């Protein structure tokens, strides 16, 4: 790691680089109950999110496809990993908490319920020091909100 890029490990932690290069759940979902597209027009990040909801409404499976920067891809990868098996209410709560995490770097409300899930998202907390990249990190969660709201809406971090 060169001194040229000091403190970049705050943002580009190994976890992020790993999820960015080899995103999890990176595929279409043919039996998707809900889908939504997300787009960051400013920088060209774009994604499509697929959710399979069970009878009782909980998220059985979440996958995505898309193109974009390492932050947006890693965020989507970590998100689909952590919301699988959760209820929609839990996913929405995580979405709110993640927004705080991405914008401030901390998440007081992250203790308690869903603490373990949010812990897995903390590698992205470094993005708060890079204001122009916050939208890259939150794109996946905005898209998730759109998908949960009813399915085929276009979301944007704008």
């Amino acid at each position: 790691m060169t001194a040229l890029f000091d403190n970049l490990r705050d943002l580009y932690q190994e976890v992020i680089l790993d999820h960015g290069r080899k995103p999890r759940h990176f595929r279409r979902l043919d039996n998707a109950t809900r889908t939504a597209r997300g787009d960051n027009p400013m920088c060209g990040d774009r994604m499509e999110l697929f959710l399979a909801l069970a009878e009782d409404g909980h998220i059985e499976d979440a996958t995505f496809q898309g193109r974009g920067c390492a932050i947006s891809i890693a965020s989507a990868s970590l998100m689909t990993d952590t919301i699988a098996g959760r209820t929609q209410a839990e996913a929405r709560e995580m979405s709110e908490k993640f927004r705080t995490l991405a914008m401030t770097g901390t998440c007081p409300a992250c203790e308690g319920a869903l603490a373990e899930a949010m812990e897995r998202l903390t590698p992205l907390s470094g993005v708060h020091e890079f204001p122009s990249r916050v939208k890259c990190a939150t794109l996946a969660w905005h898209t998730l909100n759109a998908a949960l709201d009813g399915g085929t809406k276009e979301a944007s971090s704008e």
Partner: protein
Amino acid sequence: MDGHLAPRLDLAKIRADFPILSEKIRGKDFTFLDSGASAQKPRQVIQAMVTMMETAYANVHRGAYQMSERATEAYEASRIAVQHFLHAGDAREIIFTKSSTEAINLVAHGYGRGVMKPGQAVVISEMEHHANIVPWQMLRDSHGIELRVARITDAGELDMDDLAAKLADGKVGLVAVTHMSNVLGTVTPAERIAKLAHAHGARVLFDGSQAAVHRRVDVQALDADFYVFTGHKLYGPTGIGVLYGKAEVLESMTPFLGGGDMISEVTFERSVWAPIPGKFEAGTPPIIEAIGLHAAIDYVNAIGMAAIEAHERALVDHAMAKLAQIEGLTLLGHAQDRGGVFAFSIDTAHAHDIATLLDRAGLALRSGRHCAEPLHARFGVDSTCRASFGLYTTPEEVDVLAEALVQARDFFR
């Protein structure tokens, strides 16, 4: 300094004129490579505006008092400075706007709506900035003017055969193209384009936002009907743009903004337009900004556009050589005639990730689509990084850029 790359400019002296270039970015040197988005300002420009506000400011064109006369004189002197900068025949052919974007909108309104007829067409190119696309789309949607897009080659040059084909039916009223691409660096053959347009009964508008900064422009030699550029890219302040238009064309156009100063007589029944340039300068103009633009023009003229051009050609050659050595870097655009703008992608990472890394090293580059989405789509790329040069850019900065790109590429490998 590198021996074989003899600087034509005294870069140390020039850089000392730009206070912001000595700012530190997280303790590192500020390597500013985004002049194409907006240029930095020399002390001379900053001081001229401050001095004006301290000694010669009042509203223009209306006061029967000395301070207003001072301000008016300064404002009109700016207009004359721009006239000479573009080598226009008459100062009345210089309209001050707030930006290039506003200038193009003015033409779309005054010429597109005011003079052209439904069924006629406007031709733009695939490499235009959104400012030279959207106003024509709006014209199409509101006034039934057809919008045609002339293709570019894979090298990023205007396909002149395709342009000729799109002009062939005689329906084109205006050709609106860039004089220098803000993404590809391509300098278009403006004289040839103008001749071709005129031969088919069309007028021509050049977006000179980049070109006017990097090359000498002679609107009479080009026989341009319209030429636009913007002050903030020419080392001047924001909030001041220029539209040059041939007098007889401007006189035939309808005004854009209505209000004070653009009328010679007002009753509630009707108003009579002022003669040009006043007809297109409604309301209090950007007075202080015009003075700043004048100072910027004086600044570049003192160095000499010829010297600036030569400096840039040398930098471009140096940059092309260094960038070609970087494995995994794909440059967008390989025009024969190109200026100091380089848009590229790195195979290991997205443009944003590269730009964030470079920012940490103190380098300022742009990443995204640079207000040219259709152009990026044409080349099948999502987004690119863009490095652009100004008259203060040094060969060493190009070396720093190349080294940082190699390290950034490897960081993501």
